[in-house]
């Protein structure tokens, strides 16, 4: 048995399986919903939409194409983009910090985005700036939190994975406390903030996708370009430098990109936890830790997983919605505990 060669085959197999599964989940997500259309009607409407554009008519209610175009499709696309973003950012953070338990949520990056978003919601003059206010503030919050955590964990030019995780948890708690204080202090916005925090894709719209998708796509491209360097970083900064990369700079740049990717996702979807932890971990078990393979399969699997979770979220108690963050946390929490136990505490 040669695992090195087996992994080539497994990688192709996993990619193929993920593509097939993704198409299936997308079709299922288009087909089901609270609007009272049958699955057959929605799929016919989707066909009409794709062939004739939004004016198409056929064996379905005439509002069906609009429903798909304005509600379901943007929501599906946003779920895919956010899922891929969280997973690839998670995989990158795990690589940069050499710790399979690293994740935007645990590193305080999500909390930073959350605080930024809360400020944008409660500070009225800002809302005049339109729909870009919240994402912009979430961006800034996530990036600042990432750098704060990084600075706190760096001693004399060396950054240790364990310190990073600890300062991530500490910074995350502090930022969450400030966030809670702001929420209590400005009661009238409490509901908006809480709904945002619980995570959800209910307000998906194409305008949001136009902002998120380019950032996430550019981030993914950069991570792929840096994938071999990320492999080297798994052996520590000093060893990576001995093998030919400027470790500190590479690590810093990757951290900015992963934080931006996280912020781009989180700013429109709220705090969706554990996707960034679970997805890379499961994929690593299948294709190995090489980031050249890990990143693409994580992106696909993350997209698939979040779309499936969101489809459950909007149909399980229809017409009521469960925040998708509740579903990911409900499955991710136990998974995290399992990892802790299985890895003897890491």
């Amino acid at each position, binding site marked *: *048995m*040669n*695992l*090195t*060669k*087996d*992994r*080539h085959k497994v990688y192709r197999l996993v990619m193929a399986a993920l593509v097939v599964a993704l198409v299936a989940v997308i079709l299922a997500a288009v087909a089901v919903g609270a609007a009272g259309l049958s699955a057959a009607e929605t799929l016919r409407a989707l066909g009409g939409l794709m062939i004739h554009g939004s004016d198409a008519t056929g064996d379905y209610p005439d509002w069906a194409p609009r429903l798909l175009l304005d509600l379901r499709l943007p929501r599906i696309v946003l779920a895919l983009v956010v899922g891929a973003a969280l997973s690839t950012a998670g995989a990158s953070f795990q690589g940069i910090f*050499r710790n*399979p338990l690293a994740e935007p949520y645990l590193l305080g990056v999500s909390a930073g985005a959350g605080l930024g978003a809360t400020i944008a919601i409660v500070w009225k003059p800002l809302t005049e700036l339109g729909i870009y206010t919240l994402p912009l503030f979430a961006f800034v919050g996530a990036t600042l939190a990432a750098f704060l955590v990084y600075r706190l964990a760096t001693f*004399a030019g060396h950054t240790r994975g364990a310190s990073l995780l600890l300062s991530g948890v500490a910074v995350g708690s502090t930022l969450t406390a400030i966030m809670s204080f702001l929420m209590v202090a400005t009661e009238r916005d409490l509901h908006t903030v809480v709904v945002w925090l619980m995570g959800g894709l209910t307000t998906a719209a194409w305008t949001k996708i136009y902002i998120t998708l380019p950032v996430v796509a550019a981030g993914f491209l950069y991570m*792929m*370009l840096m*994938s*071999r*360097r990320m*492999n*080297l970083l*798994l*052996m*520590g900064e*000093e*060893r990576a*430098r*001995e*093998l*030919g*990369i*400027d*470790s500190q700079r590479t690590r810093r740049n990757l951290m900015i990109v992963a934080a931006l990717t996280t912020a781009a996702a989180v700013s429109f979807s709220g705090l969706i936890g554990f996707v960034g932890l679970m997805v890379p971990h499961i994929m*690593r078990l299948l294709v*190995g*830790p*090489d980031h*050249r393979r890990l990143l693409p399969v994580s992106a696909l699997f993350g997209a698939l997983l979040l779309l499936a979770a969101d489809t459950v979220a909007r149909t399980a108690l229809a017409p009521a919605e469960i925040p998708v963050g509740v579903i990911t946390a409900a499955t991710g929490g136990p998974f995290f505990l399992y990892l802790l136990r299985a890895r003897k505490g890491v």
Partner: protein
Amino acid sequence: MHAEAIDGRSGAPVGAAPSSHPTPVYDIRALEVELGGRRVLGPVDLRIDPGAFLGILGPNGSGKTTLLRALTGSLPPGAGEILLHDRPLSGYRAGELARVVGVVPQQFSLDFGFTVEEMVAMGRYAHSGRGAENGNDTGMRLRGMPERAADGEAVAAALAATELTELSGRLITELSGGERQRALIAQTLAQETPVLLLDEPLNNLDLNHQLEIMQLLVTLHGAGRTIAVVLHDLNIAAQYCEELILLDQGHLVARGTANDVLDPTSILEVFKVRVAVHRQGRRPYITPLWSRTARATKASGDRQVHVVAGGGAASELLEELVLRGYTPSVGVVSVFDSDYATAQRYELDVVSSPPFEPFPEEAIRALDTLMEEAEVIVVAPVFFGCGNLPSLEATLAAAKAGKKIILVERPPITERDLSGGRAGTLIEELLKAGAVEVETPAQAAEAV
């Protein structure tokens, strides 16, 4: 070992045609390194010429690893400078440096499940992708592993040289410490650099792999590589390296061939260990005698012990006592006696007598003096005949004077009494006078 598989590749140091004044690979001038505000190295001046095979020796904390990490660029100089091929080391880009200098670090961890082959292939980073061709090391090669034919060959050769071919498909996280160490060495070999810096590369390796790795370095050196290796085994260093340097408290105290550097005086000075140096040609062999630090630090107090020895019966006892930090006096023993040799080895005070003769008067007087100075007297399980009975008699006198006496009684005196019962009587009297009986040398040393 299949070191020949990686011979000749990138062999000659860059621009280093043999001449009377070769450009040094490393030119280290007044180098000082500080860690945490404390100077841990230097000032050190050192030239490493092309084709050198340099062993770096010194006790823990002498600055060996610091020197090596300064050469790899991991530690910036606090003062002075390091030139690599006539250019300041700090001026090298990481990718460029990794094509010239390969490093086997002392500490290494990889907790992610790469296979051995995947890990070794990472050593090719600086060579493959765009990085090698145009000096712009974005390192983008996304598909295909190993990356190119040349990379595949280098990886295969490195695996073969470290005897890891069989293990190439195994997970690095599932290997033993020694196998991981070999994988680390293989990763560095795959870099195919003209210069190799190794920090205690024999860590975790069992004896046969230690020798194989050193043999591999010899082969690489023969193929023109420049090698500097930190070793803690003086004998391995003496046997394989062409040149040695000795560091002590951050300073370079000796440099030269093994015969120049490894003399008993400088080793005692630096390592606080007394050694015997056996010179065989130009590669000496060293055996440690005893450690001055062990003696100084053991909580033996100043309690003086005398050992009644003879016929090799006390050798183990003397070792136990020296190990526990005592400096026992010994006697009376014949100069042909192996107990005499043991006492000499540990540089103990010893009362000796000519062989095959009764103890001379002056020997017995000397024995009385030593016993007077001693607080405790240990009688080893010596065979007693008429010749050495005076030792026992002196011991009895000391017992009556209130000294603590310990008798090692295995085998019992009845089996080693060649004096027609007189020794047995003396032992009985000693017991009456309060002597303690024990069975083994270790117990005796404990009882002291």
